[in-house]
């Protein structure tokens, strides 16, 4: 049955009507629900607001309470700070020893040999044997030793119970390794051992033997420079494939710990390196397990720092930021510091002598009479009175602080004698009639300005009293080294300080006058005297000390008679120090070996309150 007349449009209308009824009803009921929920939300919100309000009130109370607590806390903190300050005042102040040096410092004992490095080794390492102010070598790491009849085998008994900073015990193996490492690297003080040590043998845990190539009398004295390093620590820090690749006992041992030791230590000394800022300073703290009993007031901390400007050192001393100055302060700064309260000046022999080295193979100083004329005309007293006031006129060709020194000075200012010597010369009278043909060249080191004054005084004496001609030339140190390498480039006179390498006279006799030293900066004389060489070698190979020192004395007399140099003065080091520092060297207990006069084992610090 068909419903007639019911069209599609009607259908649409019906649907629309249904929608019109259903949608609003659904919407209404939905809105009614929401409204209810809104109402609920509103109620809840109101409740929440009420709670929040209560909370705010409560928080405000808490804030007040916190404020009050903070005030109390601040008061407490302030009180605590006061108590802390009072306690700090009562507690002992940290003992710091700060010393100025010319830089650089090499913390590796197989690399450095300058003043600051040597001083650092004394603090951080233990030497095999130790020097004393009275000129003896006493047991240190080695508690005893003996030498074979032929002087070729030196056997050392190692002290038990010495601990390295790592905590491990020092044994003969470490001593042998140290010697081998020094020889393999060859730098620093290695030159003391390379010509002599043939073999190092570990006999047992606490016995080591050095076998020498030839007898060397001062061998024991040189061992004050054998600073014992810990083998295991170094072997753990070897770098392979870098700049240095060493071979030791046929084995590749890389850089032998060189890179690591730039900023660390491997020692057993009373102080441990904690910080190294190359070019700036080295900081060390006390090693609590040190085997040797130290005085009660030695420093807790040490800083060795690079200082190059006198005014900076002066300000630091006055502000108590430095305990001991470097050794190169000008006289006026030292005088000013001496005048300031609480600062004194320590003066002690530096173990070096200042020479005018005369070329013995160059006209006219090749003539001994010319050399003697120059030696007698020089005004030595004026040098030490006016130019180097703390120093003393030399009494030999080695400084008086050297063991085996003998007083044999024969030259002093005597113009008559100088003229007499001049007239004996093979160049006389031509040298006086035509002095322009015999101009004596004096090269002084630009880096040490006071040397110019000495050179000028010399020129004044020579020109005025002898009528000769002198030409003074300011020469950079590097040029000096270069020109002294060959006889033809060496001038008539070089003015140089030379120091002992080890505390015996033999050290300087060899380095200054033996032919093998001729091409180095330590000898401008070009003496090249085979007899003298033999005498020096004989003395150095003498094991008996008394006999050796007698030979040293004889050599000194021979050299003085040959007059190869002007022996001007023994250099005295002057250093300002705070009076709250008890420093043995300042009291006259001087060890004539570079580095040992600033031994923190013996320096006590009493910081001012």
């Amino acid at each position, binding site marked *: 049955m068909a419903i007639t007349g019911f069209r599609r449009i009607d259908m649409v209308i019906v649907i629309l009507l249904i929608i019109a009824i259903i949608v609003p009803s659904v919407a209404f009921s939905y809105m009614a629900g929401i409204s209810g929920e809104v109402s609920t939300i509103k109620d809840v919100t109101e409740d929440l607001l009420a709670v929040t309000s209560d909370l705010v009130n409560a928080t405000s109370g808490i804030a007040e309470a916190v404020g009050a607590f903070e005030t109390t806390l601040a008061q407490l903190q302030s009180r605590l700070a006061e108590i802390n300050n009072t306690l700090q005042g009562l507690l002992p102040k940290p003992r710091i020893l700060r010393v100025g040096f010319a830089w650089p410092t090499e913390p590796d004992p197989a690399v450095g040999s300058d003043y600051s490095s040597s001083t650092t080794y004394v603090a951080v390492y233990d030497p095999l044997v130790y020097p004393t102010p009275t000129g003896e070598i006493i047991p240190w790491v080695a508690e005893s030793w003996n030498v074979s009849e032929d002087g070729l085998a030196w056997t050392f008994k190692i002290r038990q119970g010495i601990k390295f900073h790592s905590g491990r015990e020092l044994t003969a193996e470490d001593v042998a390794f140290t010697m081998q490492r020094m020889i393999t690297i060859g730098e620093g003080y290695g030159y003391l051992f390379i010509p002599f040590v043939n073999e190092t043998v570990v006999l047992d845990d606490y016995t080591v033997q050095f076998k020498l190539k030839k007898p060397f009398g001062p061998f024991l004295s040189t061992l004050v420079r054998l600073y014992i390093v810990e083998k295991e620590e170094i072997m753990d820090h070897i770098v392979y494939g870098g700049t240095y690749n060493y071979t030791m006992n046929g084995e590749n041992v890389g850089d032998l710990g060189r890179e690591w030791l730039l900023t660390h230590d491997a020692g057993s000394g009373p102080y441990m390196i904690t910080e190294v800022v190359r070019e700036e300073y080295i900081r060390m703290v006390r090693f609590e397990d040190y085997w040797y009993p130290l005085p009660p007031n030695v420093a807790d901390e040490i800083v060795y720092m690079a200082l190059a400007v006198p005014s900076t050192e002066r300000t630091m001393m006055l502000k108590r930021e430095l305990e001991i100055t470097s050794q190169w302060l000008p006289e006026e700064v030292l005088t000013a510091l001496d005048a300031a309260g609480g600062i004194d000046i320590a003066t002690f022999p530096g173990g070096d002598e200042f020479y005018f080295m005369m070329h013995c193979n160059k006209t006219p100083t090749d003539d001994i009479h010319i050399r003697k004329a120059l030696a007698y005309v020089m005004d030595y007293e004026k040098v030490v009175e006016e130019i180097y006031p703390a120093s003393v006129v030399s009494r030999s060709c080695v400084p008086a602080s050297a063991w085996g020194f003998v007083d044999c000075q024969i030259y002093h200012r005597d113009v008559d004698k100088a003229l007499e010597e001049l007239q004996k010369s093979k160049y006389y009278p031509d040298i006086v009639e035509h002095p322009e043909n015999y101009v004596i060249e004096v090269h002084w080191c630009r880096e040490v300005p006071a040397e110019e004054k000495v050179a000028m005084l010399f020129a004044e004496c020579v020109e005025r009293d002898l009528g000769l001609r002198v030409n003074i030339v300011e020469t950079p140190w590097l040029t000096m*080294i270069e020109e002294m390498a060959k006889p033809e480039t060496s001038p008539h006179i070089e003015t140089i300080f030379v120091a002992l390498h080890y505390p015996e006279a033999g050290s300087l006799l060899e380095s200054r006058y033996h032919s093998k030293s001729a091409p180095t900066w330590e000898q401008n004389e070009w003496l090249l005297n085979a007899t003298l060489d033999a005498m020096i070698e004989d003395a150095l190979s003498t094991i008996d000390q008394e006999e050796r020192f007698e030979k040293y004395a004889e050599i000194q007399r021979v050299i003085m008679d040959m007059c190869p140099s002007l022996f001007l003065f023994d250099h005295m080091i002057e250093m300002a120090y705070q009076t709250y520092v008890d420093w043995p060297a300042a009291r006259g207990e001087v060890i004539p070996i570079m580095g040992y006069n600033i031994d923190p084992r013996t320096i006590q610090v009493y910081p001012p309150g």
Partner: protein
Amino acid sequence: MRMITYIVKRSAYIIFTLFGLSVLVFVLARVLPGDPVRIMLPPRTPPEVIEQVRKTLRLDKPLIEQYFYWLRDVFSGDLGYSLYTKRSVTYDVLQYLPASLELIALAAIFEVVGAIVLGVIAGRFPYKLPDNIVRIFSYVGISIPSFVWAIIFQLLFAWIWPIFPTTGNIDRDISPTTVTGFITIDSLITGRFDALANWLWHAILPALALSLGGMAQDARIIRSGMVENMDKDYITMATAQGLPERLIMFKYLFKPSIIPAVTVMGMDIAGMLGNAFPVEIVYRWPGLSKYGIEVMMNKDLNAIVAVVLVIGLIFAIMNLIADVIVAYIDPRIRLMERGE
């Protein structure tokens, strides 16, 4: 775009300049008197050890070969081995350069600000009391070298009135954690403003000592430029047109007057890296200038070349920056660059 081309072109010149400089310094350092190995080692070192060290450092090779090895190493970031510090020169440069750059940056701020303030005051009141005071300051500032200022400041403000520290660039117990090597930047990165303040406290005296000479000179240049430009027609016209004095001063008078000073300032600041050594030595400032002098005194071959190259590079960069600033300030230079 023209400016970028200009900068690129100038940068290329810098590379060629540095190459030439490297050849020159490399050769010069090696032909100067003194055997570096003998200097490094004690006088009685056995000849075989000396030879061994020479071989290790390739100093036994011909000069050209040495240069080739050096150049090859440089391209791999290795500036060679330092005979003086016994470690890599690259490490040394990286350690000392930041301290110098920081000091120079502060000195540059002092120099620029001081010179502008003093120059403008003097230029604003020519031949009157402020100008005379600035003139005296300039003469004193130019004639007294920086190291004398350094000592005077140290004695006055570190000893007599102990307001500032005597030496160093920061207290040891306050140093920030090292990130870049620059104390200032590291302080900011790690939020250690106490370290920054401590550094500033240490840096003020050396920076002031370093900047005074340049400041005095630049103040005179700015002052002269302002006095000279004051009589120019365009200033008269601007004044006649009733433009505010401040506008005339800073837009029409100061801007053209500072152009010659900018070039000089650029040179001064660039030169500070090479000239800072006396100040760094007096204040024990751990910088590259001090290091440079020490390595030169000890004939440390690789370090000498590296320091000279770094100084040369910074000098060239500073010059480039000064030129760019001048081009920015002076429209005539910009137009010249465009060929108009």
